[in-house]
């Protein structure tokens, strides 16, 4: 299935009004940076993803802008963690 499973946490979840969504992998999107730009381009609440502190995990591991994304991946966006 050519879908990404996208998750949002903490205040990102609140701003977007959703905790998760399924997303067809957009053509040409192969990295975290490209996916993030794609989502930001949706406008409105998605502009929150442009916040530079927002972190990304791919398949439950911290990811950088160049990390590859592929169909079936679980991509999570979230603010810096504040546990402990």
């Amino acid at each position, binding site marked *: 299935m050519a879908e990404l499973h996208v*998750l949002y*946490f*903490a*205040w990102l979840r609140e701003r977007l009004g959703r905790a998760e969504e399924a997303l067809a992998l957009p053509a040409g999107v192969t990295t975290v940076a490209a996916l993030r730009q794609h989502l930001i381009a949706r406008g409105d609440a998605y502009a929150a993803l442009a916040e530079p*502190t927002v972190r990304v*995990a791919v398949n*439950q*591991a911290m990811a950088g802008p160049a990390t590859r994304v592929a169909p079936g991946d*679980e991509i*999570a966006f*979230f*603010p*810096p*963690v*504040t*546990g*402990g």
Partner: protein
Amino acid sequence: MAERARVAVQTAPFDVAVELAALTAGRHDIGAIGSFVGTVRDSAGGRRLAAMVLEHYPAMTERALAGIVAQAGQRWPLLGVTVIHRVGRLVPGDGIVLVLAASAHRAAALGATGFLIDWLKTGAPFWKQEYFVDGTSAWVAARAEDDAAAAAWATVPPPAR
């Protein structure tokens, strides 16, 4: 790697005595146990706190905690590690997090305890939202000094075994 490693994320309170007993039961090679308990304070930024809600990313939390515990086990000769992090709604005085690290000697036990809590604060996907007595609420902001504390470990060579 720690011989006994227990990692849990739970809504229920933890019982330090029960966890200490489980960590040390039947063991006579342990000489030192370091521990850290984090608790909910009744004020934050000068405002009175009514409650705190902790959210996490379950699938990642498990991996992150196991990874952090494994790293501690590579740095120090640990005989046991316990990490329990609570999620959900907590009120002032409640325990948030428990770290126990057991070793033959105190430097390893206390070093691992500090390492684990520093990394829990910066490397595990938990988020705190504070609810104040005045009816407002706010997500806790990450602190630069927490990142610095965790990053500082990268510059500390693992001790001689």
